[in-house]
């Protein structure tokens, strides 16, 4: 469905880039410590990107409509996740609500 050169360019650049990030300090910078402020910022790299990716997909489906069930399932994941601190519990609850109720309708 995707153009194969599009997919492989992404895979190779992302693979090489990820390896370089992992190699960075271990490989090249040696024993020099990270600047404190940068280190502070990097702590938030997951929470800075992932919620932004979620928001549009939760608010509109592929046809561009608002689907209340998505918002309900997302809220369930967040509440259960904050409460239980368990990835598996929150994601299974969310997927069960969304795909379960969708299958029933």
């Amino acid at each position, binding site marked *: 469905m995707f153009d194969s050169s599009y997919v492989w360019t992404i895979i190779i650049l992302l693979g090489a880039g990820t390896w370089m990030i992992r190699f960075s300090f271990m490989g090249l910078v040696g024993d020099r410590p990270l600047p404190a402020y940068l280190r502070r910022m990097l702590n938030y790299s997951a929470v*800075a990107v992932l919620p932004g990716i979620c928001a549009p997909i939760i608010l509109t489906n592929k046809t561009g409509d608002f689907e209340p069930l998505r918002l309900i399932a997302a809220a369930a994941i967040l509440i259960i996740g904050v409460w239980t601190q368990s990835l598996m519990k*929150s994601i299974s609850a969310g997927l069960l609500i969304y795909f379960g109720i969708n299958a029933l309708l």
Partner: protein
Amino acid sequence: MQTQGTFLRGFRQGFWSGLPFALVLGPFGMLFGVIATEAGLNLVEVMGFSVLVIAGAAQVTALSLMNENAPVLIVVFTALAVNMRMAIYSAALVEHFGRFPLWKRAVAAYWLFDQPFAMTSVDITKNPQRPREERFGFYLGVAIPLGILWYVVTYMGATLGDLLPTDIGMEFAIPATFLALVAPLLRSLPHLAAAFTSVAGTLAFASLPFNSGLLLAALLALIVGAEIEKRLERRRSADV
């Protein structure tokens, strides 16, 4: 001979410490395989992601932007932004692996995902006296079996995805995965504020071309997180 013995001992201990993570990585990798196949990737491409990138959240990020036909560089940069946390892991392990020959550090870098880093840093606190070679074995003992599991479950997920109908709204599994990853972090105020900035910013900048609003929002969120953390620390030290 001696070094090999301690390497293997570390490896065995690492293997047992990392094993519980299989419960998380197994379903997550399978989900990636299903979503990727549903999005239209073939089996080789799906496996290419899991073998060459070997970072779940970044793989799903890339997929989500590919679903929106974002340009190559935007897909790559946004997914790399998710992986920037690994620079911290790399910096934290320099003290322990930094004096190994280049090839060993290159190999260690490939396997540096969340779980091996987490277990190794816990082990560094618990067993500070562990010899370097044994520590390296421990690290790879966590990483390699979980990495191989990641390939296998990706393959299983891709096969399963081929059997599922394509119109069941599988793209919802993307935010489901991410919210579940992020939710446990939201008890901390700076994390919560960064997450909120990311959502508000992405929605506010939605009209910017090529999904660049997402990256701009991420940058703001990083600053918000770091600033609030700094202020909380200052206040805490003022209280004492």
